[in-house]
């Protein structure tokens, strides 16, 4: 039983391992198969690893280390083809190799430790950028994002800001006009809804709070009170971000690492699995509609 579970004294039924080592290995290899969509030639690394993992033949550290090594030239020299979560996945290959290099009964402990540090570092860097950027604080970044990304217009910006869809679309057309090859060089006035300032303020406050909380919770020692926030904070982040802006690679990476920190226990498998299915399903429905 993990030390964290011991502290929280959960019923044994919930504490039981719900996920096999083989399933975790298949999910980890699947993550890199998704990441290969950024640079299709890397599928030559990811798909054989996924095949081995699905067949239960990737229980030695070597396939993972070799895959991490094979990704190195692509990640190092093809950086402008990869988003940041691909690097998180790349380091996860190394982490799985390290976890498999020890005794079998230490697999989940090693994996959980690597996942915890990787999540802590990822969110610490993300939060640090936002704390250090005045345009983020002022709401300017989010004002641009909600205007630029049409996925946010109907479910988010138009109703919450009080601007209405017609004026949101008129603002978006002004933005498109400026970016056009023959667009103007002067500033354009944007219509602003009565509640836009509140919406932007809430977005800024929530993002800073949740990213900082996740970084602190995952970097804090296992026995600290902050550690109890790990899964609730990560799940809240997943739902609040990926319900609106689905990024499959990052979603699967965070679910994989969250499950690893939870040592594959049944309760975390249920919650992260539900989040993955619900958010992935929502993204699919929106993409098809």
């Amino acid at each position, binding site marked *: 039983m993990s*030390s964290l579970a011991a502290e929280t004294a959960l019923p044994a039924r919930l504490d039981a391992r719900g996920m096999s080592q083989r399933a975790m290995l298949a999910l980890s290899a699947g993550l890199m198969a998704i990441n290969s969509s950024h640079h299709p030639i890397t599928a030559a690394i990811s798909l054989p690893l996924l095949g081995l993992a699905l067949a239960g033949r990737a229980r030695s550290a070597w396939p993972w280390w070799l895959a991490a090594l094979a990704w190195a030239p692509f990640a190092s020299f093809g*950086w*402008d*083809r*990869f*988003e*940041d979560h691909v*690097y*998180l996945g790349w*380091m*996860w290959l*190394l*982490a799985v190799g*390290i*976890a498999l*290099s*020890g005794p079998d009964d*230490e697999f989940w*402990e*090693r*994996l959980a*430790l*690597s996942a915890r*540090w*990787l999540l*802590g*570092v*990822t969110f610490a*860097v*993300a939060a640090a*950028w*936002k704390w*250090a*950027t005045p*345009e*983020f604080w002022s709401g*300017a*970044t*989010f*004002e*641009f*994002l909600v*205007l*630029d990304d049409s996925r946010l217009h109907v479910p988010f910006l138009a109703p919450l800001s009080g601007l209405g869809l017609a004026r949101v679309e008129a603002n978006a057309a*002004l*933005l498109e006009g*400026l*970016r056009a*090859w*023959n*667009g*103007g*060089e*002067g*500033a*354009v*006035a*944007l219509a*602003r809804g009565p509640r836009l300032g509140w919406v932007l303020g809430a977005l800024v406050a929530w*993002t800073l709070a949740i990213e900082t909380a996740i970084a602190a919770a995952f970097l804090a020692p296992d026995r600290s009170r902050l550690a109890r926030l790990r899964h609730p904070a990560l799940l809240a982040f997943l739902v609040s971000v990926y319900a609106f802006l689905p990024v499959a690679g990052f979603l699967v990476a965070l679910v994989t690492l969250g499950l690893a920190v939870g040592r594959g226990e049944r309760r975390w498998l249920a919650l992260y699995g539900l989040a993955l299915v619900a958010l992935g399903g929502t993204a699919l429905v929106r993409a098809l509609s």
Partner: protein
Amino acid sequence: MRPSPSRPWAALPALLLAAMAGLQALRIQVQDLNSWADGPGFAMFAKPDALPARFTRLHLETERGLERVAPFAGLDPAIHAWRVLPSEARGRRLADALLAEAFVRGPDGLRPGTSGGAPERVLGAQVELWSLRVEPGRLVPYRKRVVRRELAGG
């Protein structure tokens, strides 16, 4: 609980990721690299000046002066590269790709090709990277970087 002998190694992936993120932060600050993607920066949604806000304006120099031209499909990779990392070298590559085309003057101005208008003598090219600043109630475009190339003997 006895500390596991595996603990230092388990932290290695996170240490490497932190080192990569640090290098990327340096590139974003020093080289004006796009911060929303393109490497292990983890700076998504922090700065508004990122790939979606960056756009290019292309100009050709003719005997009438500088004239703006529409981008065409063959330029897409060079335009994307210039928006991601607006270095002098990438700007020159984009300008040279523009100058490698033949242009004709049609009723709507200059366009690439050799038919449908009078051939135009091009003397040089100027590529500009623009970005957008959001101020309360307005969107302000501003020029970030300009690279100019002239045709030898043009």
